[in-house]
């Protein structure tokens, strides 16, 4: 019997396993489906990682390596090349690999850290042919950075998520032409620093309020049609631009991979596609915790790490029987119509010994505005912001006092002049 089993050996899994061990769990296991630890960081050879957590700039594999070393120093067990196929709500895990075969493992607590996947071409129904040369930006990243293979010579990128932007630069550095990055929204979906460093610095046009309306190619992409869209994202006829290209890379969103969580009967938030969690990162199933991109998609790995340390800590405390009964009274965290979601979604009354960090994302772009956090007793916290963007996750600390004597907290956005 393990104290804590962590499903996933990416940044969230590594952080939570280390934290579990350091907070008293004795027998901790990480199960990873790949043959190395580190998850997607292994193919992120660009820099920009660790600025918040380590106060220095690292590339992906370096960032992962620091945690992999800590995992090894902390005497944490690891199963590589192992796929978890079942998790039951009584915390039994079925996993298989080609060495030990079929494994049934029990744990006092489980941390779900399976990460996310990229939204595929099918999800956005682009008219045209189903030829080769249409690929997610992350798959291209794997081919180029891990395998040393190029996926095309003349590329258009659809969507301006961070991976798409990073890959635009990467492709140019490897000798490909990147003709444009096409984004349906009137603003970029990636971090500002990535737009500047990956597109602007390489003269790659960012076509905002545009989308691909047709892909043409018999067996491989030969040509695409890009059209302008209006404010309701309807295609404007007559605005078509043709690009001769052999490749379309998609960077159109990330989706938490919660198939296993669902098997364990974990309640899922339709807004995040991740688990609904309490302030200790515990899901609706007692003793099952969730963190990182499987919980909600983050912009920065540093934030994933911080969240995973919380999940690992509380998973350890649960395993050590120091946890609070989940049936205690809870405070709901609500958001107004301007905000897409917040995590955690609930705070336990019995766990009010510390301030709470709340993460959320706005639904649209705001210029000069105020974040207002209100409790049922009309006590307020106000935070002024020069701007808010959907692509930048916000985090606010809410003082523990604000939670006292109330059953609901509301986070809202007020635009200047409203």
């Amino acid at each position: 019997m393990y104290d804590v089993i962590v499903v996933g050996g990416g940044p969230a899994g590594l952080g939570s396993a280390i934290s579990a061990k350091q907070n008293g769990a004795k027998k901790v296991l990480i199960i990873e489906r790949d043959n190395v630890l580190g998850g997607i960081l292994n193919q992120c050879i660009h820099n920009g990682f660790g600025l918040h957590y380590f106060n220095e700039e690292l590339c992906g594999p370096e960032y992962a390596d620091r945690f992999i070393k800590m995992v090894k120093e902390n005497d944490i067990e690891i199963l590589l090349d192992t796929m978890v196929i079942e998790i039951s709500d009584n915390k039994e895990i079925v996993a298989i690999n080609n060495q030990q075969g079929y494994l049934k493992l029990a744990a006092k607590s489980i941390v779900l850290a399976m990460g996310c996947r990229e939204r595929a071409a099918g999800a956005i129904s682009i008219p045209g042919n189903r030829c080769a040369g249409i690929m997610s930006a992350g798959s291209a990243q794997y081919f180029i950075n891990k395998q040393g293979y190029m996926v095309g010579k003349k590329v258009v990128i659809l969507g301006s998520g961070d991976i798409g932007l990073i890959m635009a630069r990467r492709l140019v550095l490897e000798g490909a032409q990147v003709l444009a990055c096409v984004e349906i929204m009137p603003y970029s979906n990636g971090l500002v620093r990535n737009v500047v460093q990956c597109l602007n610095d390489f003269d790659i046009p960012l076509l905002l309020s545009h989308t691909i309306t047709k892909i043409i190619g018999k067996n491989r992409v030969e040509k695409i049609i890009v059209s302008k869209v209006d404010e309701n994202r309807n295609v404007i006829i007559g605005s078509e631009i043709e690009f001769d290209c052999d490749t379309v890379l998609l960077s159109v969103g990330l989706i938490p991979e919660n198939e296993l969580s669902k098997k364990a009967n974990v309640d899922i938030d339709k807004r995040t596609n991740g688990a609904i969690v309490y302030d200790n990162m515990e899901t609706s199933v007692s003793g099952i915790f969730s963190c990182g991109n499987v919980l909600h998609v983050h912009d920065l790995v540093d934030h994933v790490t911080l969240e995973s340390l919380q999940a690992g800590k509380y998973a350890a405390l649960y395993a050590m029987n120091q946890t609070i009964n989940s049936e205690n009274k809870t405070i709901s965290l609500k958001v107004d119509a301007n905000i897409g979601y917040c995590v955690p979604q609930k705070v336990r009354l019995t766990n009010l010994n510390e301030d709470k960090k709340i993460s959320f994302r706005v639904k649209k772009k705001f210029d000069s505005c105020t974040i207002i956090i209100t409790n049922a007793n009309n006590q307020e916290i106000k935070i002024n912001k020069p701007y808010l963007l959907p692509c930048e996750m916000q985090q606010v600390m809410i003082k523990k006092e604000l939670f006292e004597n109330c059953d609901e907290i509301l986070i809202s956005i007020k635009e200047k002049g409203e």
Partner: protein
Amino acid sequence: MFDVVIIGSGVVGASIAYELSKYKLNICVVEKENDVSLGASRANSGIIHGGYDCVENSLMAKLNVEGNILVHQICKDLDVPLKNIGSLVIGKNDEDKQVINDLYNRGINNNVKGIKIIDSKQLYQLEPNLNEGFTCALYCESASIISPWELCIAQIECAINNGCKLNLNYEVTEIVAHNNYYTVSNGENSIDTKMIINASGAGSIKIDELLDECDYQCKYVKGEYYLLDKNQSSIVNHVIFQTPNKNGKGILITPTVHNNLLVGPTATNTTSDDTSVSSDGLQIIAKQVNNIYKDINLRENIRNFAGVRVRSLKKDFIIKESTKNKNYFIVAGIASPGLSASVAIAKKVVELVSVNNQLQQKETFINTRKVIRFNELSENEKIDLINKDKNYGRIVCRCENISEGEIINALNGPISISSIDAIKRRCNTGMGRCQGGFCGVKVMEIIAKHQNIAIENITADKKGSYIISNVTKKGV
């Protein structure tokens, strides 16, 4: 010298190869693509129809009803996924009710078993998630869903195991008729054969013209589809047809044997090789689907595709021996319900062939095929299998939980394959919600290693659908 050359390895060519391989014949199947089942056979609704929709006394009606019965045993013998879920034609008003009555009567005349007209109460018991307002339906118990490409692959594999040859990447460009045999050529290699069966689907007229044949005309009709995530499949229990009216048949909605939900097809005239999807087509589907089931969410789409069906202007199948060229058989215009009828079409072809040719049954015909589907095994079976072969312990496709062992099995199969989609058709890798985003590259690595070919030469699908364009600078 071959006794028979079958041109085309869609489900019709495959069924014919399977039936003929029961006899002492030297058979060769030639296929222009790099795998079997790459035309209409892989892009259709995957339905074995009851047979009430075909015009009375037509070849279509006869062969649909026969095929519907025959296909069950073949699927059992050759381990092809088939589910007998039944179909419903749903109606709202008196006009619909009249059409449903007509269909029922036609079904009875066509000898369709297990059809009845049901009222709204019975309908909502069968389909509780159906939108309100439907008042009656034609229920057809004998309709089934099937994996069309697996029916095709299974029959070709079985034929090969019984001595049939398969030449992939062989596009027939020339046929010379001699006194009592033919020479078929792709411009490089020629094959002599006593008989030819033209089962080349959308290409049938092109083949016929090589022999100055062709006394029929066809039109090409494109059908576009949405294939939805497995989380949508529990909404619908049966194959759901709308009542046909003056605007046409409308789209159908059906679960697939792989537990997805399929919505479509449209019907637009096109050319023989246009399988692109159009925004107009997708909109037509989107407009109709929520009028039937409000809960179906097209945003759960995992893939759009289109297939081209060939309709003869005579509105019936064409299955005959040429009047000009003895022992040249034409199987053309196999539009819907071609899949349902395919195995009966093959029996009909055997009948035609045997008119002028003495056919002798083989003493031994290997009529079994077993596919290991790891996901469907019990816990103990999984344990045993991994103990026997460790490759089953390595999961490659994480959406569908497909193991490396299954991929290696596919590569060891009788048909030589080297594309990602060929693996997908045989073991469902990349069929899930990530559509091969994670496993595509792993599948490529396994193909490369197993077939001993460079990873650069592996295609996504047909020839020319390359994935890797060149190598990186390798840090130089």
